[in-house]
């Protein structure tokens, strides 16, 4: 009963067209889930820009984008799963497995580098599919399934190899790019932006996308409406897996190696969850926006970059990011409550 009421409230925000008085328009604009993160991003940029002249340069932002690519693409998959009120703790490990397979098959076993990429993508999508199966068929919480999968996938990666192997040039093409003025825009950056736009469109305009929101709001209602929630969830986890494969390809382009440790040691998983949360997506599912996730991911990169340029020790960077996450979620909660009155 409460669930139904809650879901109605959420739907009211997403779907209902309010009367077009200017005040309400402004309010509706400010209540958009992406506005909070965007304002935070702009304040952070203004602050760092005032502190160090090296921050607000095109060159620096080119790097900030490049540094956020891998986490951002992981976070797209994470957003889809969190919107269904799930979570994925295994995405960093899955990405690492994909990257290691792609590089090893091509560099060690002499398989065609593009075929090796295809195999890697198939593997990551396959693991996503298994996650989806376990969540739906065994009715296990996503937290448990992906926690288990984190261990399994990390172990499988290291059983396969513990070596870091240099990638062939054919596999690092996303690291190339074109120059606008003096600034390098990599194909990886372009690919990331495109992925965000496509996902945004899919979530907003397609039935599949609307169902993802609906399942996070009220899975039972979706089922009663005659939609197979199991199939939908399996599709979401598989799609997320495919996105982790693309993240693997972007990682290879960036580091030019296949590194079995980095998926877990590089803290990618928690950073992807941080990006989603900073981007204003609710961890309870059903509410959020993938463009917010891009902003969230950029905020993480901007703080890492800006605080370093200011010469602030890394321990304080951790502290500040932690405070930021809690602040972002409380502001979001507060604005939601305010809006409901």
């Amino acid at each position: 009963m409460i669930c139904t009421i809650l879901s109605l409230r959420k739907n009211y925000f997403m779907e209902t067209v309010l009367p077009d008085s200017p005040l309400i328009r402004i309010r509706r604009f400010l209540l958009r889930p992406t506005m909070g993160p965007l304002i935070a991003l702009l304040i952070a940029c203004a602050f760092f820009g005032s502190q160090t002249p090296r921050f607000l340069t095109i060159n620096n932002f080119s790097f900030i984008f490049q540094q956020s690519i891998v986490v951002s693409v992981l976070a797209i998959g994470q957003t889809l799963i969190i919107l269904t009120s799930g979570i994925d703790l295994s995405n960093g490990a899955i990405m690492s497995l994909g990257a290691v397979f792609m590089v090893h098959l091509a560099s060690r076993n002499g398989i065609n580098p593009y075929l090796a990429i295809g195999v890697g993508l198939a593997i990551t999508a396959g693991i996503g599919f298994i996650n989806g199966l376990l969540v739906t068929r065994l009715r296990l919480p996503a937290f448990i399934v992906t926690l288990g999968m984190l261990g399994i996938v990390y172990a499988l990666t290291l059983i396969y190899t513990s070596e870091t192997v240099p990638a062939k040039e054919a596999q690092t093409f996303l690291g190339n790019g074109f120059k606008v003025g003096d600034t390098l825009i990599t194909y990886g950056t372009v690919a990331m932006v495109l992925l965000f736009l496509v996902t945004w469109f899919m979530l907003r305009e397609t039935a599949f996308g609307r169902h993802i929101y609906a399942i996070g709001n009220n899975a039972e209602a979706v089922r009663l409406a005659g939609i197979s929630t199991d199939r939908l969830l399996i599709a979401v986890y598989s799609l997320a897996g495919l996105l982790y494969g693309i993240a693997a390809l972007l990682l290879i382009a960036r580091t030019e190696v296949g590194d079995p440790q980095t998926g877990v040691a590089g803290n990618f998983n928690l950073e992807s969850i941080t990006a989603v949360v900073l981007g204003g997506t609710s961890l309870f599912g059903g509410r959020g926006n993938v463009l917010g996730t891009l902003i969230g991911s950029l905020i993480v990169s901007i703080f890492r970059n800006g605080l370093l340029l200011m010469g602030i020790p890394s321990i304080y960077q951790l502290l500040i990011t932690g405070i930021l996450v809690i602040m972002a979620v409380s502001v979001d909660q507060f604005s939601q409550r305010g809006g409901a009155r």
Partner: protein
Amino acid sequence: MFSTQKSKKLALMVTIILVILGTFGIFSAQAQDVVQVGLITKTETNPFFVKMREGAQAAADAAGVKLLTASGKSDSDNDSQVTAIENMVNAGVKGILLVPADSAAIAPTVKKAREAGVLVIALDTPTIPQDAVDALFATDNLKAGLLIGQYAKAALGDKPVKIATLDAAPGNKTGVLRHNGFLQGFGIEEGDASIVCSGDSGGDQAKGQTLMENCLIKDPDINLVYAINEPAAAGAYTALDKAGKADGVMIVAVDGGCAPGIAGIISGHFAATSQQYPLKMAQMGVEAVINFAKTGDKPWGYTDTGVTLISAKPLEGIDSQGAVFGAQSCWGTLEDGEMDAAMKVDAAAGIKPPA
């Protein structure tokens, strides 16, 4: 009369019970006869610990003792190490070789093991306090940093220098020792104006690359990079290479792994690295436990397992070994053809092959 199905089931069950009993019998017989040595590392997979396990296994096989191994799930997983020590003491080991994940937190568990008559030796990383264990077999990390610091000073002389330090993680004791050793060797103090950028790489290649990119934005004129280990150094090289600055910047690191460490020395990406010897730590550890089992003598205090400066660009007045020496004694896997390449760079630099 039993039906055929029932008798089959019975036969199967009897077999299973016999097998189980038999297995226990074998294990308990072994436990009584053979000296057992325990090895507990931080993780299962880091090539450094893989090499350590190899060394321990080889020494154990040579002496006909049994090696039990366990590890934590991450570099800071104290809990798994506590469990492992308890299990090994229960299994009746004579001694435990331990790479502590949390130097202070493991001390009470170590104390209990020692009270149960087990010899405990710390490998690679000291406990806090250091005398919580019977003995410590480890690299002198301050010296490891010192050697590359001295090398960099000798190479750069009085040229203006801008340094980036790619450190480990806040509170990492090994990282602090190497960092301080490097500064000492270079002849500067913490906070010196020549250190233009410092950050944490976590010893991870991708994070090292991100850090180096940001450091280059902070100061594009960086010409000396100190890295906590070689993966971080490799990340720094990728960042420098992509920025077109690889040639003008000297990278020094610590570890001496085959790849990317010695491979980086051979390719000229790294100027110098301090090589450490996990195999030796483990060998000495196993031998010490066997000696304790035979004679009751315990080792004590700190034993330096050695560190060697490896460089394919030797300098006047700096004691170093070449790429071939590094390749012969590195840990991890050496790529095909790397040994030949090492011989070539050594010959080009006029370094004599090691005896």
